[in-house]
């Protein structure tokens, strides 16, 4: 009989190799000198943090648990609040509290869920948990002088105060605050709030004091403003929807960019002086779409279907690249000394663009508005604009204006209007007015009218007495031969360089 082949060679070899390896791992067969000592990690080394419990962090008269020493702390379970006490009191700097995913649940008459109580406390972090139904703020790191704190991954709801309050120079990130009686998130001076949401709160959704930065946040259905920011703040990438008051309410010297405000009960965006608003959309708000104070810059914004004016500014502002469409009142209204350029205003309930005294309106389009396309008050310049199909006048101006190089067509649409309608002492030059009830209409005296063309109006020229104008040449019936070649004599019917024409 043939011997069976030995099939155990490979396993035996593997076992030998494994034994050899184990022997190598086990160390030297000659032990080191000294007593035998453990080499494993202790529990303390594995979890060096301090558990929040009655032994480590006993409470006192107004707290269930009190942290009085710097260090890192964590919860081991939910905390049920009781009246007249806060959940966790932090009475030292340099404390981190990891809520560890657990829930701090307050009761009526309780204090804050987590609160700092010592003036001047700094470097406190609260992370990773739920804080709800407390009688004060959910998380309050905003006592007097509290600075440089962090609140992250916290859900705060149903608290009788604010959901989250942060002291100066703090950060609040990845948090959600809902249905708190006060504000959702309150941030003191110089804070950063990012990637947070605030909804259904009884006050402002997210509020920041001076020099705060708020980015990528949403504020929805809050009873106050969606966002409130004091002077020198920045809001970027934020959304304010369906808040009862203003969507975004900003102080002076703020920047608002890449935001939207939708169906807020008040205005979409309001800013104080010296702020910039860029790349925002405001839609369906109960007040103005965008409202700014003095000296602001508004660029590349759209205002659609707001209950009052789409975009309104006070003195000395610049508007560029904006559109105002279907707003109940006027599309764009600017105060004294503003510039409006490259904007469009369409189908607004009153004027398309309305400028106060001494403004410059250039390169704009105003179409199908229910009153005037462009109205400019005394001392303003309107140039290189297009005004068409407006119910009343295409361009209407006060005294001492400069109306130059505009194209006004089909105005007086379903109403009675002129292409250009001026009062007194204005300069009206180089415009084209067609297909309105009146081409150029001047009701006052002392206007200077030259080098304009009017055509297909019911009446091309309606000029009051005592104005100064170049000859008005009626070219409607003047025949001229066709031209094919390299030269032809003039068919203008005049050599007067200041002539106006009806054609």
């Amino acid at each position, binding site marked *: 009989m043939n011997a069976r082949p030995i099939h155990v060679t490979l396993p035996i070899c593997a076992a030998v190799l494994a034994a050899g390896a184990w022997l190598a791992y086990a160390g030297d067969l000659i032990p080191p000198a000294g007593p035998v000592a453990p080499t494993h990690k202790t529990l303390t080394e594995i979890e060096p943090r301090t558990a929040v419990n009655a032994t480590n962090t006993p409470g006192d008269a107004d707290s269930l648990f009190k942290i009085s020493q710097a260090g890192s702390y964590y919860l081991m379970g939910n905390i049920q609040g009781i009246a007249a006490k806060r959940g966790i009191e932090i009475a030292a700097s340099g404390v981190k509290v990891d809520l560890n995913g657990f829930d701090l649940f307050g009761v009526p008459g309780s204090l804050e869920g987590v609160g700092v109580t010592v003036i001047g406390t700094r470097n406190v972090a609260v992370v990773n948990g739920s804080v709800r139904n407390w009688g004060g703020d959910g998380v309050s790191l905003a006592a007097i002088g509290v600075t440089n704190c962090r609140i992250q991954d916290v859900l705060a709801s149903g608290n009788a105060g604010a959901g989250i309050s942060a002291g100066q120079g703090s950060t609040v990130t990845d948090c959600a605050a809902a249905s708190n009686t006060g504000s959702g998130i309150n941030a003191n001076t110089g804070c950063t709030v990012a990637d947070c949401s605030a909804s259904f709160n009884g006050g402002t959704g997210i509020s920041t004091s001076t*020099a705060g*930065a708020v*980015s990528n946040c949403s504020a929805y259905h809050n009873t106050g403003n969606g966002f409130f920011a004091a*002077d*020198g703040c*920045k809001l*970027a990438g934020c959304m304010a929807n369906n808040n009862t008051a203003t969507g975004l309410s900003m102080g*002076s*010297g703020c*920047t608002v*960019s890449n935001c939207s405000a939708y169906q807020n009960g008040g205005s979409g965006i309001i800013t104080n*002086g*010296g702020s*910039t608003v860029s790349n925002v959309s405001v839609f369906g708000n109960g007040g103005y779409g965008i409202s700014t104070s*003095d*000296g*602001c*810059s508004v*660029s*590349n914004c759209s205002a659609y279907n707001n209950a009052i004016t789409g975009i309104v500014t006070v*003195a*000395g*502002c*610049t508007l*560029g690249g904006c559109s105002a469409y279907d707003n109940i009142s006027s599309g764009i209204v600017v105060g004294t*000394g*503003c*510039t409006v350029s490259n904007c469009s205003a369409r189908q607004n309930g009153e004027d398309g663009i309305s400028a106060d*005294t*001494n403004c*410059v309106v*250039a390169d704009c389009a105003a179409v199908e508005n229910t009153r005037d396309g462009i109205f400019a008050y005394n*001392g*303003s*310049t309107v*140039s290189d604009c297009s005004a068409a199909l407006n119910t009343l006048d295409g361009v209407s101006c006060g005294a*001492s*204006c400069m109306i130059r190089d505009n194209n006004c067509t089909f105005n007086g649409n379903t109403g009675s209007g002129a292409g250009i309608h001026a009062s007194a*002492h204005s*300069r009206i030059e180089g415009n084209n007015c067609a297909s309105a009830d009146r081409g150029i209409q001047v009701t006052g*005296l*002392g206007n*200077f009218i030259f080098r304009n063309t*009017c055509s297909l109006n019911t*009446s*091309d*020229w*309606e*000029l009051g*007495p*005592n*104005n*100064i*104008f*170049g000859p*008005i040449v009626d070219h*409607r019936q003047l025949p001229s031969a066709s031209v094919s070649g390299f030269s032809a004599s003039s068919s203008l019917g005049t050599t*007067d360089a*200041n002539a106006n024409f*009806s054609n």
Partner: protein
Amino acid sequence: MGCIASSNTDDGINTGLGCTVADCSASFNSGSGIKTSTGCRVAGCAAYHNAVDGFESSDNCTVANCSTYSNAGIGISAGDSCTISACSAGTNTSHGIRVGSGGAVTHCTAFSNTGVGITSSAGCVLTSCSAYKNTQIGINVTQGSTVADCSTTFNTLDGIVCTFGCVIRGNSCEKNGFSDGDGAGIHALGAANLIEGNDCTGADRGIDVNSSGSIIVRNACKMNTLNWVMAANNVFGPIIDRTIPASPAVSGNSAPSSLDSTDPNANFSY
């Protein structure tokens, strides 16, 4: 991008060469709000209540869609070959906007600054700007610059001032020399300027030309204490006095001229 600089003991933001600063806010700093080196871009920023300038840019920078308000120095101070567009400079304690040589300023407003509204060095282009209620000159440019399609109103001194070799065209200047000041709508200090198609109203002087060799055509001045003050040896179209126009009303499609001139280069008082 998207930074806040507030209450710092020096500048709020200070960059090196070729940087972009966008959507930032700089307020209450003890230096300038935003200070940039050569070749930088600043967009969508606000500078408010800083102790020096709001924006301080070196050469070859662009500043766009910014607001500079109530700073203790200049609102926007830019070096040579800079472009400033769609910016607002208001209530600064010095000038509103200042640019160096070869710069461009467009669609900007300068209002209520305690200095000149917009001031530039040689070879600049200023278009479609508004200078309103500044306590000195509205717009001030030096040699070889162009000011076009701007509005200057209620400035305490002159509306527009130029030195020599400038083009001043299509501007509206109203009620300069405001309050207790003394000013002209347009004031040319030097020679060889082209002053064309402007409208000057309600100042101490409408168009005031101190030197010789300028061309003054197709302008209109009205309701100034003196509409025209020009030194000898300038070149100008006829100045037609139409302050009492006495023309009939017009209703229809044709009418004879009431200009009292067929000269295409005529200037008018009306």
